[in-house]
């Protein structure tokens, strides 16, 4: 210990160079966390990819079947149904969230709205973001089901087999957007407030009115954040749609999404764990391809 302290001054890197004391710190705190991360995240991930080519029930012996799981997935109409539902949910969720978040954030920063009102909106809009998915899904589930019990004229939900069978998608899209908008409003407000006054003043001198300033100054400046919103919703939704749908519909097949498909095969009584892993890999690949291509496309558009 003393030895290393004496040497330290002479070594390259000064006080930041490695010594026995620093190695001990690494061994006691940093490496254990790293090993746990390997064990609890990396090993399972590798396992799921590696076992996706086996016929395996999770416990017993494995049979190597090559790409058979993947072929079965692509042949399964339920999987395509799930894929279609995911795409529909994400597509409409993106549109609703981007339009509303931009509209609200621009209004709160550029329109003549009292500071106190802005504070109120900031407080209220963010509330869904602190609520649990269980609370959100239960409140909306019983809210819509209660609406459905009203037999008067303004029951726009009317359904014969229950609303979650007859038209689950619009309701799920609405609930997911309700939960998601506030977070992005806050993100956008900060970005808009960081745009320098001079930029607007220059536009003002050019004779641009308020609306034109928003169109030609604000929107281009927040394009990277809008791209962030789109990618964030996209990468979050495909796997996470299930978190909302599971408690809403009880996980029945009429609103199958890919995340739920994986979950049902992986943990249910179906004993098809290898198959579930293959579905998870497919889901991940779809998600990556969509994210990267949207990101690439939008970046190119921004550059233009």
């Amino acid at each position, binding site marked *: 210990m003393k030895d290393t302290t004496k040497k330290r001054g002479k070594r390259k890197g000064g006080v930041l160079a490695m010594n026995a004391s620093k190695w001990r710190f690494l061994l006691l705190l940093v490496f254990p966390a790293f090993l746990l991360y390997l064990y609890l995240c990396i090993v399972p991930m590798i396992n799921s990819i590696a076992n996706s080519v086996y016929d395996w029930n999770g416990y017993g012996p494995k049979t190597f079947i090559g790409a058979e799981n993947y072929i079965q997935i692509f042949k399964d109409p339920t999987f395509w149904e799930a894929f279609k539902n995911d795409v529909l949910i994400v597509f409409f969720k993106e549109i609703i969230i981007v339009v509303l978040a931009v509209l609200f954030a621009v209004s709160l920063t550029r329109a003549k709205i009292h500071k106190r009102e802005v504070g109120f909106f*900031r407080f209220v809009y963010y509330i869904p973001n602190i*609520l*649990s998915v269980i609370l959100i899904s239960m409140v909306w589930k019983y809210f819509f089901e209660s609406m459905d019990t009203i037999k008067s004229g303004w029951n726009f939900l009317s359904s014969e087999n229950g609303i979650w069978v007859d038209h689950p998608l619009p309701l799920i899209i609405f609930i997911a957007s309700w939960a998601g908008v506030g977070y992005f409003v806050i993100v956008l407000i900060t970005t808009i407030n960081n745009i320098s006054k001079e930029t607007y003043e220059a536009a003002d001198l050019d004779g641009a009115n308020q609306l034109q300033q928003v169109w030609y100054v604000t929107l281009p400046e927040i394009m990277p954040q809008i791209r962030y919103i789109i990618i964030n919703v996209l990468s979050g939704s495909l796997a996470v749609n299930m978190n909302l749908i599971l408690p809403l519909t009880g996980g029945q097949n009429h609103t199958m999404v890919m*995340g739920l498909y994986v979950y049902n095969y992986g943990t249910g009584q179906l004993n098809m764990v290898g198959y579930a892993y293959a579905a998870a890999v497919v889901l991940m690949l779809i998600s990556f391809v969509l994210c990267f291509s949207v990101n690439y496309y939008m970046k190119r558009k921004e550059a233009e």
Partner: protein
Amino acid sequence: MKHQNKKSSPSVVSWILRIFLYAWAAVVILPLFWMLYTSVKERGEFIADRFALPKDIWLANYQTAWMDSSAESSLLRYFGNTVLIVILSTFLLLLFVSATSYALGKYKFAGMKLFETFYFVAMLIPSVLVLIPLWFQLRSLGSSLFGSNSAITDNIITLSLVYAIQSMPVYIFLLVGFVRKINNGFIEAAVMDGANEWQIYTKVILPMIKPILLFVALGNIMNVWNEYTTARTFLESEKNYTISVGIQSIQNAFTYSFDYGALFACLVLSMIPIFILYLLFQKQIQNGTDAGEGIKG
């Protein structure tokens, strides 16, 4: 034309936008307000009219929510479990990410760069690829160590550890940047005073990154308090349920007897701790949103 616009449009447009803003605020608040007043509505009143305001404040629902279950499955028990998981996972997360960020940000050692890249790439791992294999992995570990499949998974300490470890990469990425910005002079001064590594970490680094650690803690508390899917997969016995899993499991009993008031009382109770946190730390939580924007973008 342009000049006309400039004079007349701002106030009219502002009023139209204001209407949109209040409309959305109403959409956000109404279902929650409905939940709140239904939670103090008598059962018969609810059956008669599901949306009418309650005639009296019927607090017995809260009594039912809180008491009406066995000791194994009371809301109190779920609260206790969740608080324990929140405390444990937050403590572990803060310890791991602050120590790791200090090492990554300040140690001059070739391996560190590799380490940092690893955690950066790890942020991209989708949870769907991890949860189920992790569950099988820990079950078979449980059966070989303790002779019981659920010995390790059905355990709130394991769940806390899983929460802490799985959310590490994002926060490390955020913290390393701040640690790097700390002036090396502070570390040199501490070394001059004879401080060892542990003292540099606790007396120099930790105080300086305290505001960011507060954000990490708040983010983790909210995530863990509200988490559902992992908890539902791991926890099997009712005595271990968290608040989310617990409410999901008692919901059928309440809806079967049309006791929506009591069910909503459970929901209201479940959000109170986080709502108080939000009232106290709204700025930090929302600024955390901005910080999060930086990392994820």
